[in-house]
């Protein structure tokens, strides 16, 4: 399973709609970094509205991919984290520090443009 990555102007948009098995998550990490390089995108929004579970492995890969995008000079925002997912993440002890978040895709794009201008 491959997670589609769309390009909109200077941004890459990702909406995760599939069940996240380990290989899918790792392939996504690689695909996103390659797409950033090839497209020269300045920002990335990863929308998690349809994701109903994030365990410590998925959280680690997501956290890593955000650090990697920033190493490449790109800003990333996570959007749409469900309340139940936010609660379980905290109970697992995972805080995703230094990660920009927003309620939905639209607000994610707003935050990106603020980050890139400011």
């Amino acid at each position, binding site marked *: 399973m491959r997670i589609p990555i769309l390009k909109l102007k200077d941004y890459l948009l990702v909406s995760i709609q599939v*069940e*996240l*098995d*380990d*290989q899918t998550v790792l392939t996504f990490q690689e695909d996103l970094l390659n797409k950033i390089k090839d497209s020269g995108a300045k920002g990335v929004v990863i929308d998690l509205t349809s994701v*109903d*579970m*994030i*365990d*410590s*492995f998925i*959280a*680690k890969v997501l956290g890593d991919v955000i650090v990697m995008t920033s190493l490449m000079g790109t800003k990333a925002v996570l959007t749409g984290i*469900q*309340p*139940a*997912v936010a*609660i*379980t993440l905290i*109970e*697992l*002890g*995972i805080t995703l520090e230094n990660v920009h978040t927003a309620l939905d895709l639209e607000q994610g794009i707003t935050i990106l443009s603020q980050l890139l201008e400011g």
Partner: protein
Amino acid sequence: MTEPIVININNEFDIVLARQKGREVSKELLFGGVDQARITTAISELARNIYLYAGSGQITISILEDNGRRGIQISASDNGPGISDIRMVLQDGFSTSGGLGAGLPGVKRLMDTFDIDSVPGAGTTITISKWAR
């Protein structure tokens, strides 16, 4: 009493299967959305530990009944290397695989009960449960 569901864990897709079964059963038991996420996440952590540290094993999901209350019990067992220092693996951040070390201490917080039975060289069985409100 419904029969327990057994999922053999041999690869990473079995991890997905185990948590999907856990989600189904917790829906059936009318757990709320947050508890469903807690149970599914706990199963995912235990199934991945089986796959990572023991290579293979089993997740067994059963329904608990007590005086009209219902709950879910999940048992994760393997014949892998076992755990010699249980206190250590229950510390947040302890990992022998470069993971976050959030799995076992996290599962303990997500569920109502948490028991580890492990014999070094012989294997590990972790049993967790949660009661529906």
